């Protein structure tokens, strides 16, 4: 326990910078907020495929900056640039959130003992937030690197990625992980900084959003799979 750090008459803690402890906490929360809000928008944009190929085609063109190009098609350079930016945000987030990770076996044991002995919902929810965060360490870079190297987005090209390139494997794991992690994260964020203290309401909202986003994401993934399975190679881009 604490006595370990006692030297003579004084106390010796870890050498810590106070300012950096504060900065790391703010960076973690700030990056988490950006990622969480982005996810809410992102899942709706990609789900426009549920409204038909033409709807998705238009959404993709607008987000690629189609309004600012003469052709109206936008540029996938924007997708690439944005993906690089998101990768940087994820890196800041992962680096700062790592401070929370049970890094030693002894800490895992303590966490396990605690969860077996003490019945506490928010600790269990945090456990899943932490596990899904760990999974995303691997899954998020896969997704983002693909968007940087193969940034073409469109009803046929995206569907071909999901079906012919087997990307549904990544998405079927990433979807539940990111949705659970981000919604629980936003819930915790509100309580942590005292944005809102209506805890039961916030937790219910987080759970409803998890359910809703999972259904939305699974439906659109199915749509991509159906479209992709109907395409013949080489895949030609969708023309409305």
């Amino acid at each position: 326990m604490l006595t370990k750090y006692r030297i003579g008459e004084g106390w010796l803690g870890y050498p810590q910078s106070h300012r950096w402890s504060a900065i790391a906490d703010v960076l973690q929360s700030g990056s988490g907020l950006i990622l969480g809000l982005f996810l809410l928008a992102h899942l709706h944009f990609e789900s426009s495929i549920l409204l038909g190929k033409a709807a998705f085609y238009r959404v993709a063109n607008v987000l690629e900056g189609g309004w600012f190009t003469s052709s109206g098609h936008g540029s996938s350079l924007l997708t690439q640039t944005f993906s690089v930016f998101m990768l940087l945000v994820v890196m800041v987030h992962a680096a700062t959130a790592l401070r929370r990770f049970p890094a030693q076996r002894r800490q895992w044991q303590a966490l396990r003992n605690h969860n077996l002995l003490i019945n506490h919902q928010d600790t269990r929810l945090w456990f899943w937030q932490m596990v899904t965060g760990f999974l995303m360490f691997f899954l998020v870079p896969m997704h983002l690197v693909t968007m940087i190297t193969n940034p073409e987005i469109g009803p046929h090209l995206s569907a071909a990625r999901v079906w012919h390139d087997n990307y549904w494997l990544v998405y079927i794991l990433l979807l539940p992980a990111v949705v659970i992690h981000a919604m629980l994260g936003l819930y915790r964020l509100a309580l942590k900084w005292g944005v809102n203290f209506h805890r039961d309401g916030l937790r219910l909202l987080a759970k409803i959003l998890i359910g809703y986003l999972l259904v939305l994401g699974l439906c659109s993934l199915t749509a991509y799979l159906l479209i992709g399975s109907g395409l013949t190679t080489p895949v030609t881009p969708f023309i409305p």
Partner: protein
Amino acid sequence: MSRSLTFRIFRYDPQLPGDAPKMVDYQLDETPGMTVFIALNRLRAEQDPSLQFDFVCRAGICGSCAMVINGLPTLACRTLTAKYSDAVITLMPLPGFELIGDLSVNTGKFMRELAERLKLWLHPKAQQADIHHLEQPMEPEEAAKLYELERCVECGVCVSACATAQMRDTFVGAVGMMKIARFELDSRDARTADDFYHVIGTQDGVFGCMTLLGCQDNCPKDLPHMQQIAYLRRKMAGTLIASSKV
């Protein structure tokens, strides 16, 4: 007709050579208004004089009788057995403290070390330390706020209910932060905001808290941990980031 209760109790005496931790069942007839504290006393008097557990006030004031009752850390003297409809009550010692034996843990040692580490006593301003001076009166609003935080009975529940505290030995825990908040509010205390930041503006203090809120949910005195810790976090983050100190 009274029910027969089953008490499933953690038994282990670290002083006894060769003893190993085990769970032991005891049967006891429930009486009206029975608390876990009353039940434990009867078990010790009638069935097993070697059973170890702590109590002093039996009224929720001293904080000695905290233990984990059916998965929730709380005060045994304030827990009615009638609450448990299935008549099985599992008792475990508070985790995270030195085990004295069975249900008895050394929270006193922990609290003392914490107080020494965080200097949890009033540091009076110079003229107030002089007994020939009349003490400054305190505004009733301030006194009320102090009283709210002063209600902590140092039971240790918030430490054992916190997975962060269980994973990190040097984390000061909710009780440490609540007490710092208490002295920060106290106009008689000579320490500046900076002095307090030095103590808990770190990874071992408020920035190590992961907002699991086991403290808030289990504190038998219903202290406002969530609000206080969020307040400290905002205040410290703002001041520390703006400061030029590394």
